[in-house]
């Protein structure tokens, strides 16, 4: 199976980090993975996106133009990429930052209020982890435990307390994709 994803949002929302986290988890679980960032001038303050491929086959094109899965962290990203998603695909929308979110009817769609959930946890910076939790729950692309193990390697020493916060964010997001 080949998952071809686009993850898009404002610069600073952790869009690139979400993609990198997913491919690292995918690699740990033995998949072939690739990650390509958008690197245009839009990165400065505007929208940013990355193409992620997770597959049990060798990866040909790393560029995703017809995603099977889309994570849209803001309105402009949803407008831009929603029409490209393969019929039967999956769209996750950060409903905190999209006014009147609605999705195509031929795809699976989850609305995830990432900012509200991150706000409840006291740190807006984990909004992307809320979304990642929802994505993993919705797809099973990688195991939640793999991500949790990785957190321990990312946050240690004085930052060790962030592991628990990020796990709570993942779990908060997962509830929206049940």
């Amino acid at each position, binding site marked *: 199976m080949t998952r071809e994803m686009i993850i898009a949002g404002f610069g600073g929302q952790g869009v690139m980090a979400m993609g990198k986290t997913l*491919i690292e988890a995918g690699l740990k679980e033995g998949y072939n*993975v690739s990650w390509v960032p958008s690197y245009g001038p839009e990165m400065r303050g505007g929208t940013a996106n990355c193409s992620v491929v997770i597959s049990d086959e060798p990866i040909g094109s790393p560029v995703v133009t*017809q995603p099977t899965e889309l994570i849209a962290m803001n309105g402009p990203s949803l407008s831009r990429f929603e029409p490209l998603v393969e019929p039967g695909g999956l769209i996750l929308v950060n409903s905190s930052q999209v006014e009147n979110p609605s999705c195509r009817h031929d795809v699976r769609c989850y609305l995830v209020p990432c900012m509200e959930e991150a706000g409840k946890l006291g740190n807006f910076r984990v909004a992307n982890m809320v979304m990642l939790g929802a994505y993993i729950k919705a797809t099973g692309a990688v195991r939640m435990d793999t991500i949790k193990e990785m957190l321990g390697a990312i946050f240690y020493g004085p930052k060790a307390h962030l592991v628990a916060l990020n796990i709570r964010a993942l779990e908060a997001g997962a509830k929206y994709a049940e």
Partner: protein
Amino acid sequence: MQKELWKGNEAIAEAAIRAGCRAYFGYPITPQNEIPEYMSKHMPKAGGVFVQAESEIAAINMVYGASATGVRAMTSSSSPGISLKQEGISYLVGANLPAVIVNMMRGGPGLGTIQPGQADYFQATRSPGHGDGHMIVLAPSGIQEAADLIRDAFELADKYLTPVMLLADGMIGQMMEPIIWKETSPLPEVDKPWAADGRDGDGKTHFVSSLRLESDVNERFVLSLKDRYAKIARDEVRYKSIGCENADLVIAAFGTTARIAQSAARKLDEEGLKVGLFRPITLWPFPYDALAEIAARDSVKAVLTVEMNLGQMHEDVRLAICGSKPTPFYGRTGGMVPEPRHIADKVRDILREMEL
């Protein structure tokens, strides 16, 4: 050995340090900035020299100076910056100096676009600058291969006393993929008896120059290059052919475009169309004979060239095939990365037309 995730540009820089490069000179340009950034951090730790030069021209001439002392030296840039370096590359050729130059191509001409492109094929393969010179040109299609080829580039540069270019594009530079570091030890030191390395005032003075005022002396030098190039063309050609046995059609593509073409070929295979991929790894010397042999097979109806330019490697494909089979072309320009489905559509069209 464990697989690690590396960004293309950073893997290239790390591979150079691991291979024994100890002098890097560069000037920033998208999409290869992570190379100088990585070098600035890690080259000093390896005991080497990092200089952010005042221009691309200064950087390539610093490479000349460092290489003349016998050290393994490298620079990197992207298309417009490589144009600036051409004078210096010609001087490297003229002075028999080894060097590695990375071109992370973007779309041109002029400042063009910062997105991936492949339109510097002619510039790289026809002549690295003015004069009767060539350089070896290596084209990776993924990050593992880019890292492996950087090591080979330093080895080839020392072996043939020539600049070697790693010709990739913004996609390879920017993407992340898992790789394995296969070689852990630096390349063996090479004796460079010609190097202008001081030697404490002892022995004969070494003068590393490309100036030969007497024309017959210059001609003898150029003829010696010709012999060297013939040897390189004989011994160093590299390519990959995938699924070309009994193929109805063969796609010729290099670098990023080759892996996209491979996706297209896989898609077509599911429809029962046999599509092979011929991927030159050395763009100079081009694998003419290997492609000619594949194209001559009875099953092959046509060889389709796909590139991110308007038909540059296409010329080499046509030279290899010499009109014995049709050689259609599909090209997009910088940033308009071809999609597998568009390549597949083109293949179907070609095969349909040929049946009529």
